[in-house]
């Protein structure tokens, strides 16, 4: 893909992939053109209300806003289910443009005393609706991996818009305050153009996404009933959404408390109105610039470096630390520090991480929940926080309910406050008030206010701790939600076959059918085996009684309806299976039987003619019915070495029954031959742990045939005990790597079937690093060269040795992490669609430890071959550093 100039420019600032530059820029502009007018409207709103209505009436504004926003949420939820996303956003923008113009017109009439309250509510509805629409669009366009990289960038667009809005208000607000609304409406109108570009781009890029972006536009199904209660119930019934809602409530309650703490401390220190103005003037300007810089340059890096869990913890932990400081020492410097962290991180890192939490949720749930949480719940939480402050602090302290100044601004927690401009906008001469103007609570003794701050700090600490707890819960639930997005495509088939098929019985049925025309003795012995296993069902009886040509001729349906029994001896009518087994055992244990049969067996063994094969097979099978100590059992050793695979098969079967130590070397040698391998393997597995030592000796013997060593690894996997696992792990550590793939596969089988078996983490980690190193070397070997021939080869996909290496890395990871999670990630990386890879990596990001994450994830991400070659080279460079001794 050719890299555009825009890409080259943006890639210097942010971690962006080719093809993402246009949509990321559009979203940057979209957020910019929402926040730019909002930061003009917001100070205008505050100014009009505070100076026309007064701060004492602010609770009415909060309450009215909460009620109206509740109604808007209900209406919006219904509209969202019926109208396409595109139409809904454009309509909202048109509506806000027109109402902004209407407000400008109405403010010309100074007699309309209700206008400041109406405008206050309108401004809140505007930011709630437009902000939520923006983040929903981000959710539509990006998956978690993309959003993590880019959220800081387009989030920064909003903050830059805020800076421009605040600056513009400062520049022209003093002389032409009313013209600000005209500018704001023009800016909102311009954002319609950007939104259209986004939808056009999205349709062009991925037409199938129309279904998501233009939800319900063409679907024939009737829209489901949605509304305020429905959204509430959706959140209540979903654990993850409920946790998210609790986190949002706690975030805003704590923000209210922090705001109160910092402002009260500043209040104590600052006596003069113009000092206050000066301090907050610089402070607010800084508060807009700082989150912008954090968004653009740090958010992506922080999330990538620390992962979702730690990033979620970062903000509350900093607030916990600062709030604790204010609790013990409520000083000016600490107040400024906590306020700086609060505003700068809450508008950058914290808000963006919160937005990321929505991305893995299914669209149907997400849109309902997001509208409810972002539009209603955060306003509700702010109100709740303010109410708590009044109940716990204000009411017990004072006779009259006086709204503290600090609360005036506490409603605006989600954006950097620029209320200082309110003085300028509403009354341009506000700054000309006499120096040292007395404020409402200035008569209060500073010590009393300090005590209030300490009490609030105590509450802050308490709520922050709860917030940290719920952040932990939500981050765990986030990993589970990401996991749900990834299907398990396949599981180890050996386990599935073992669960669904009785392989020994199946083979016995086939052997019985096969032996019928060969030897009546073998046939009878197979029937006896079936009786012993209680498997001689009427269906099996009929099946093994028919001649092959009869079965071919008959229909499947009619076969079992036939009354013909054929050649099957009617044993069950004569004798019970217990008696039969007992009688056969007694006969075979008789000395005279052993004596008589000895000469027969020796003759059969001596006979090398083709005809003796049947006799040998019968003898081999019969020995399996004897006691292991019987003299004839010793003859099985000779039969095991017989050249005929048929004789070997019966000898191996009997060896598995008698389990004599003497047979083990022969059984292991039989692993070499592909024809006897499966039977030998089955026989050795029957020995269980008792044969692990012998197998281990062969496994670690470098002079032994490699196929035999691979066979022993497979047998140890089937035995599957801790001892077997330890042997395999030991060989993995000590071996030269020539049978690593087989060893890893064997260990993976044990891990899959016996999750209780433990593997040594240090060995596994070392092996993972070595395997990754091998992967990088192989990758560079295949794709590093720039020749045309090599380039042509690239179109063929990953070579098999790279596939094997990648699979080994994941199998190894499955030994020390939850195997199911790792396999889920691996299989979805193999599916190789953009979303499947991104979600798989997101799962790994939330599963692997930091050190492992930093090595594995960069190699798995979706990227161009050239970039992957670069990363492989960089990875190898890291391995060559002295602290990477293991690799």
């Amino acid at each position: 893909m050719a890299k555009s100039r825009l890409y080259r420019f943006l890639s210097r600032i942010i971690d962006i992939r080719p093809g993402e530059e246009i949509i990321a820029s559009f979203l940057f502009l979209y957020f910019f053109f929402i926040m730019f007018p909002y930061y003009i409207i917001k100070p205008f709103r505050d100014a009009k209300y505070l100076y026309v209505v007064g701060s004492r009436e602010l609770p009415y504004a909060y309450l009215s806003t909460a009620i109206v926003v509740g109604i808007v949420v209900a209406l919006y939820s219904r509209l969202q289910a019926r109208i396409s996303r595109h139409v809904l956003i454009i309509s909202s923008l048109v509506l806000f443009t027109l109402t902004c113009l209407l407000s400008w017109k109405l403010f010309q009439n100074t007699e309309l005393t209700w206008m400041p309250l109406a405008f206050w509510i309108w401004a809140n509805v505007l930011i709630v609706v437009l902000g939520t629409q923006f983040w929903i669009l981000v959710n539509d366009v990006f998956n978690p991996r993309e959003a993590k990289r880019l959220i800081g960038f387009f989030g920064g667009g909003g903050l830059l818009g805020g800076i421009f809005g605040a600056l513009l208000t400062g520049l022209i607000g003093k002389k032409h305050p009313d013209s600000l609304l005209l500018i704001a409406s023009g800016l909102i109108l311009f954002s319609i153009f950007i939104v259209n570009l986004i939808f056009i781009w999205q349709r062009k890029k991925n037409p199938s996404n129309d279904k998501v972006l233009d939800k319900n536009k063409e679907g024939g199904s009737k829209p489901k009933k949605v509304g305020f209660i429905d959204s509430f119930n959706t959140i209540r019934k979903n654990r993850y959404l409920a946790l998210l809602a609790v986190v949002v409530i706690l975030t805003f309650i704590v923000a209210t408390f922090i705001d109160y703490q910092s402002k009260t401390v500043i209040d104590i220190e600052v006596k003069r109105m113009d000092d206050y103005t000066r301090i907050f003037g610089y402070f607010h300007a800084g508060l807009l610039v700082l989150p912008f810089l954090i968004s653009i340059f740090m958010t992506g890096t922080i999330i990538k470096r620390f992962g979702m869990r730690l990033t979620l913890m970062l903000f509350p932990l900093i607030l916990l630390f600062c709030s604790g400081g204010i609790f013990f020492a409520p000083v000016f410097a600490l107040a400024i520090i906590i306020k700086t962290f609060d505003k700068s991180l809450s508008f950058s890192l914290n808000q963006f991480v919160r937005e990321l939490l929505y991305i893995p949720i299914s669209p149907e749930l997400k849109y309902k929940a997001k509208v409810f949480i972002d539009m209603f719940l955060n306003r509700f939480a702010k109100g709740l926080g303010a109410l708590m402050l009044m109940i716990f602090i204000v009411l017990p302290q004072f006779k009259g309910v006086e709204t503290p100044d600090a609360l005036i601004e506490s409603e605006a927690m989600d954006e950097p406050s620029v209320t200082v401009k309110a003085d300028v906008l509403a009354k341009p001469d506000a700054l000309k008030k006499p120096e040292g103007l007395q404020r409402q609570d200035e008569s209060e003794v500073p010590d009393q206010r300090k005590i209030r701050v300490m009490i609030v700090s105590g509450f802050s600490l308490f709520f922050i701790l709860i917030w940290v707890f719920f952040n932990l819960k939500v981050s765990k639930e986030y990993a589970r939600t990401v996991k749900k997005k990834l299907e398990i495509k396949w599981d180890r088939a050996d386990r599935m076959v073992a669960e669904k098929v009785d392989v020994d019985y199946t083979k016995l049925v086939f052997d019985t059918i096969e032996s019928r025309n060969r030897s009546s003795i073998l046939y009878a012995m197979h029937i006896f085996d079936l009786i012993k296993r209680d498997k001689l069902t009427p269906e099996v009886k009929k099946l093994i009684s028919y001649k092959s040509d009869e079965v071919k001729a008959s229909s499947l349906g009619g076969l079992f309806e036939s009354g013909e029994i054929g050649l099957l001896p009617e044993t069950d009518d004569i004798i019970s299976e217990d008696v039969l087994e007992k009688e056969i055992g007694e006969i075979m244990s008789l000395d005279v039987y052993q004596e008589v049969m000895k000469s027969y067996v020796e003759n059969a063994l001596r006979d090398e003619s083709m005809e003796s094969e049947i006799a040998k097979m019968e003898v081999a099978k019969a020995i399996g019915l004897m006691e292991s100590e019987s003299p004839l059992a010793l003859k099985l050793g000779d039969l095991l070495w017989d050249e005929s695979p048929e004789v070997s098969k019966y000898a191996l079967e009997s060896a598995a029954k008698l389990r004599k130590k003497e047979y083990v070397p022969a059984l292991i040698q039989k692993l070499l031959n592909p024809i006897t391998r499966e039977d030998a393997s089955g026989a050795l597995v029957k020995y269980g742990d008792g044969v692990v030592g012998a197998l281990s000796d062969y496994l670690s013997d470098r002079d032994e045939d490699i196929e035999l060593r691979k066979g022993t690894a497979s047998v140890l996997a089937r035995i599957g005990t801790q001892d077997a696992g330890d042997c395999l792990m030991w060989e993995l550590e000590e071996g030269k790597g020539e049978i690593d793939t087989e060893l890893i596969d064997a260990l993976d089988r044990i891990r899959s079937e016996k999750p209780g078996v433990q593997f040594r983490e240090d060995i596994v980690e070392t092996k993972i690093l070595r395997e990754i190193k091998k992967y990088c070397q192989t990758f560079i070997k295949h794709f590093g060269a720039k020749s045309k021939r090599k380039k042509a080869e690239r179109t063929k996909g990953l070579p098999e040795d790279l596939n094997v290496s990648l699979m080994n890395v994941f199998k190894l990871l499955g030994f020390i992490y939850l195997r199911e999670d790792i396999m889920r990630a691996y299989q979805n990386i193999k599916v190789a669609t953009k979303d499947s890879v991104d979600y798989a990596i997101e799962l790994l990001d939330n599963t692997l430890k930091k050190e492992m994450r930093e090595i594995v994830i960069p190699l798995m991400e979706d990227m161009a071959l050239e970039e992957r070659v670069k990363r492989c080279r960089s990875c190898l460079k890291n391995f060559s550093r002295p602290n990477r001794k293991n690799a």
Partner: protein
Amino acid sequence: MEINAREKEDIVIFDIEGEIRRSDVSDITLHQLVKDQLDSGKRNILLNFQNVEFIDSFGVGEILASYISTNNLGGKLKIAKISKKLYLVFQVTMLTKVLEIFDDEEVALDSFNKE
């Protein structure tokens, strides 16, 4: 027993002729042939049993081992045109619970593409 491999739309088809018995194996087993295809990156295998008269327990082991090797790599192994008798034995022994068996080769090939 004779096994010939051909390829159709990235699906490897093994045409098997004769009986899959341990006594009939010449130089290479069915499982080894399947593994070779897996090693070369193929993941979809179809065993054409049109000319298979019968199999013994070794044959069952070979089919199951091939099935396991293929599935463990995320591939699919299916069987087509099996005789009625074999199908009956597969049913009684519940092998049909694991193996996907088709009457017709084209239907079997389509089933790979649908997944």
